[in-house]
């Protein structure tokens, strides 16, 4: 029983990270994924705040799942999420003001984020508190990882370097912003500013989705080929057996 429970907890936590990644597999929460991924730091900040809101709303909605009447489910969820978003906004404005200004409206837009509402309707209102907490955590981590991938590509291609310290002051070294030049050097610069612009967001997201689709397709093709080979081998074996059967019968008859 305990074993079963533990495996269920593990399942709720793990599925959201890669197998059912909210951004790349379910294609939800695309607005912030395109808007705030210009900078690596902003993407991490968004990921952390998003995870906090998702975990809190999942836990509260799951705890209230037997109290909230079915007819007003969605409005009730939106109010719960909006409350946590307000808390996050106030905390973020007070402690990391640079993150607050760089996320802008997208922090408020967490209220109508499809992933938060989707997890509430698809998971939290059917499952227990612990599972909902783990589900929120898993999906939050999955979304954060997806944002990090997009933002790394965009920041490196768009500006030619990675900067730390603009948004999180504790990443500064000796009070200076750290900039790691990657596509840039003395006298040469291979950065493409398009990737820092809106169009670049669409391109990077589209290409990553295509790469994932290609990987999935090749896996599917391989599986189909293996299946065909197995079927062929089985047929071959059956034919050989059918051919061998009369001979065996004859030799058996010969012994008598």
């Amino acid at each position: 029983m305990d074993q079963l429970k533990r495996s269920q907890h593990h399942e709720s936590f793990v599925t959201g990270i890669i197998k059912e990644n909210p951004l790349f597999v379910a294609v939800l929460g695309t607005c912030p994924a395109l808007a705030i991924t210009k900078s690596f730091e902003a993407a991490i900040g968004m990921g952390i705040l998003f995870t906090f809101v998702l975990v809190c709303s999942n836990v509260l909605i799951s705890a209230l799942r037997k109290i909230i009447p079915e007819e007003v489910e969605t409005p009730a969820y939106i109010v719960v999420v909006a409350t946590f978003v307000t808390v996050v906004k106030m905390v973020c404005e007070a402690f990391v003001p640079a993150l607050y200004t760089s996320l802008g409206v997208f922090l408020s837009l967490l209220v109508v984020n499809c992933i938060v509402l989707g997890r509430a309707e698809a998971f939290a209102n059917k499952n227990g508190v612990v599972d909902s907490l783990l589900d929120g955590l898993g999906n939050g981590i999955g979304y954060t990882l997806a944002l990090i991938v997009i933002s790394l590509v965009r920041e490196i291609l768009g500006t030619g370097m990675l900067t730390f310290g603009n948004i999180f002051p504790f990443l500064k070294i000796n009070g200076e912003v750290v900039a790691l030049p990657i596509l840039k050097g003395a006298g040469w610069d291979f950065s493409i500013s398009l990737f820092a612009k809106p169009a670049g967001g669409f391109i990077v997201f589209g290409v990553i989705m295509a790469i994932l689709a290609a990987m999935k397709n090749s896996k599917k093709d391989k599986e189909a080929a293996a299946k065909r080979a197995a079927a062929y081998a089985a047929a071959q074996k059956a034919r050989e057996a059918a051919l061998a059967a009369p001979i065996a019968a004859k030799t058996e008859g010969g012994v008598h």
Partner: protein
Amino acid sequence: MAYFVAFLLALVSYSLIDNVLLSRFYGICSFIGVGNKVKSAVSMGIAVVFVIVFSALICYPIYHFILVPADLKFLDTVVYILVIASLVQIVGLFIKKYSPALYKSLGIYLPLITTNCAVLGVVQENTDTSLSFAMSMANALGTSLGYLLMIFVFACIRTRLDTYNTPRAFKGIPIALITAAIMAMAMTGLTGIGA
């Protein structure tokens, strides 16, 4: 007259240059989700125009005459989302009574407008950047018309894309995103009007 011209320029800039979908990224989910059905895309777009304009119209006085004097500015997001959710319900009832055919064609898209980032995004942007009443209405009207235009154009393009022989990995959402990127690049060509 100068005021009117300023309003028109703001309208153009909010609807085309700072297009809601292609450069401000509000409502991408619905942009990708509605897909290739031109008729439902247009119905959805029209409903979004109604909801955005009316919620901007209602939320402006609520913020400036209730939340600011009462020193409750931090409650703005919660209040806005409640206004939007009830407005969507009212618009739904209204359309159901006066045009059952339109109600039928809008179908499931109507309740989804509540969670369309474009609505909350516009209202929140109006107060966050403390726009005047005329400018916030220009923002609401321009943004929603830009949304309608882009969702229509995109649905038309996607019906064509489905019949073309795109590389297998790019079929569906990836090629739609690349198309959106090209449209976004085209829109940046308009930068400078009204500046």
